[in-house]
């Protein structure tokens, strides 16, 4: 019952949209594909849906070839980032559409549509047209339509990206419950937001420049990102990555000693590494390294402070909302025990969750 992609590749105008994508999507599990814009996430979904050809590679379902199966026989439902519904149909008819096409009996259609409208909380809007609904409601209609058929493959392409954050927060909360009884459907959800991937996914696939660069349970990808690229993608704000040198029990960036070498990095030989440190693992302190505030963002209940430390940019995340003026000089302190070490090629050498001396297994 799995959906298996092997070496899928697609090049358009010399740009790799997909490059040797191999992945096995399991029934009954929620896969989140995380990556930046244009990483190939949407392309991958479109290939799985049959809306996009590939140059090479294979795709099988239940072990049988799936690439040649036309879209309308793939038993696949999709929710787009844009709120896509049939403009000429009422909410009820929108949700009923796939059932009618599948030749489901009338009474059965009514029952299932009402049930799925109730689940997304749109019962009272069933006679409206999509254009008479708010963005959040429109996306709920699309979700209901995707849910109603009990399709074998469910694809969600950044479904909440165009919503306000309060709505996004709310729909995310509802999402897991909504999709909990999808039985053994293969569910694939793309996102650019780490919090979404962490919260929703059973399995996280990290995509970058058309490749899948790491796959695993969310906690594992988060705690042990295989490369600096993964580390940046799986963190919001992106993980701070800086080049530094271990020498004499201290870590230095250029000539500036930034911190001591923590226990979990103690056995690393002296030399140059790329270090990673998450934004919440840098603190603004009363004394420490002097840096200048270059930008401040507020994201929900967190304040992201962008700092310049002698030419290197750092992002610091502090809990709560704080008024900090641009151009201020502040002191920052790195938490050495939270440092990640990567080699010059960007591969993970040591993470805070690995004990000293234990090499990173993959």
């Amino acid at each position, binding site marked *: 019952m799995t959906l298996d992609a092997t070496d899928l590749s697609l090049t358009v105008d010399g740009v790799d949209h997909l490059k040797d994508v191999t992945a096995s999507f399991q029934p009954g599990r929620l896969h989140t594909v995380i990556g*930046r*814009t244009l990483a190939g996430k949407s392309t991958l979904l479109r290939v799985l849906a049959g809306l996009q050809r590939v140059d090479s590679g294979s795709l099988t379902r239940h072990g049988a070839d799936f690439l040649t199966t036309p879209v309308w026989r793939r038993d696949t439902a999709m929710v787009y980032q844009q709120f896509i519904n049939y403009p000429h149909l009422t909410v009820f008819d929108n949700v009923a559409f796939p059932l009618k096409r599948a030749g489901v009996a009338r009474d059965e259609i009514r029952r299932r549509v009402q049930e799925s409208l109730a689940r997304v909380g749109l019962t009272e809007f069933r006679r409206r047209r999509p254009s008479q609904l*708010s963005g959040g409601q429109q996306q709920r209609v699309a979700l209901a339509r995707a849910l109603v058929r009990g399709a074998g493959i469910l694809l969600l392409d*950044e479904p909440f*990206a*165009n919503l*306000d*954050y*309060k709505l996004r*927060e709310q729909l995310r909360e509802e999402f897991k419950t909504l999709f909990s009884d999808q039985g053994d459907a293969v569910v694939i959800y793309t996102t*650019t937001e*780490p*919090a979404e991937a*962490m*919260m929703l996914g059973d399995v996280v696939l990290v995509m970058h420049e058309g490749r899948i660069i790491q796959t695993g349970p*969310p*906690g594992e990808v*988060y705690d042990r990102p295989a490369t600096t690229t993964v580390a940046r993608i*799986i*963190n*919001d704000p992106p993980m701070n990555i800086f080049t530094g040198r271990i020498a004499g029990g201290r870590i230095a960036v250029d000539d500036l000693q930034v911190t001591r070498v923590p226990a979990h990095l103690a056995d690393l030989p002296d030399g140059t590494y790329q270090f990673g440190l*998450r*934004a*919440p693992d840098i603190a603004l302190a009363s004394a420490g390294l002097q840096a200048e505030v270059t*930008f*401040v*963002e*507020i*994201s*929900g*209940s967190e304040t992201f402070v962008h700092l310049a430390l002698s030419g290197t940019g750092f992002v610091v*995340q502090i*809990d*709560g*909302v*704080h*008024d900090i003026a*641009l151009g201020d000089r502040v002191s920052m302190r790195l938490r050495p025990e*939270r440092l990640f070490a990567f080699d010059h090629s960007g591969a993970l050498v040591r993470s805070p969750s690995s004990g000293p001396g234990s090499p990173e297994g993959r």
Partner: protein
Amino acid sequence: MAQIDIVDVGHTYTAGAEQERWALKPMRLTLEAARTYALVGPSGCGKTTLLNILSGLVKPAQGRLLFDGSDVTALPTKARNIAQVFQFPVIYHSMTVYENLAFPLRCRRWDKARIEARVHQVAEALGLDHRLRQPARRLTADDKQLISLGRGLVRDDVAAVLMDEPLTVIDPQLKLSLRRRIREITEQFRPTVVYVTHDQYEAMSFAQEVLVMKDGRVIQQGTPEQLFEAPASTYVGYFIGSPAMNFLTVERVGGQVTLAGRPLAMAWDVPDAPQIQVGVRPEYVKIVGEPAANVFPTRVRGVRDHGPQRVLEVELAGQLIKVKTPREDGVPATGQILVELPRAKVLPYVDGHLATTPRAADPE
């Protein structure tokens, strides 16, 4: 760069409607010169009406509007010297970037050298100085929006820049960088900015002061930190912050506020009212090991992994609240945990409104 005084300004679109139903209830506000303000609220809250009154598109049913002390209530838009950025980029597709930026100055008959200098200065701030000769129609939506802003900034006599949901047509992934650019540019040119949005992130990240609007009223005005720390109403507590502020219904026994039969100390005077709620941010609820003052037993109902933090949903005295904990603290091993509600961070609300002001001399 004018100070804007809104003096008893109110508006209704249906003549004769009683004031309770006006789109904008009469209000008195002062927007200081060279500061950035965000009007934020759900659709229908009156923020667009207020913006239209500032721009002169709508003449208020009552009240006066002053720019630097002079009455502009009756003046048409073009006599008010304001620059506007709309939801959709308004640029001249037939012109180059340079011509677009120079257009307002040419209309004002500036001499050529002066235009050239000013356009280059603004283009540099916009980060478009290397693309001045390009036709404007080839630009992406976010660059077009920057030009819309730039056209407002080239004039040096602009009283205020009004922005109406300028990021609407921008891809979600580009919003952040554009917001950052707009913020940096306004820091540099320091006009008085009024920015309308329904998105709380945008408002909080962009403005020095945020005005939360609802039902035609400004329900709270303050810096982002003030809105976060002391929401004036339960609505603001819900609207600002993610996850939203927790609200718990408490009892009042004698002079003492209690929760689940235990006293709850607060750093505020709590008025006597039949129904009191307390608000506390998920960030400030602490998981502790030992019973102490303001520590309550709870039962864990759910855990959500957000990455650097986990959000626990716990049941306290039959009510659900959220608690944010750092990832490294792990998931509690037992279903029962103790949480502390720090006395300085618990705020009392009566009828949905913040019910006290801080004590003058608080020991803490």
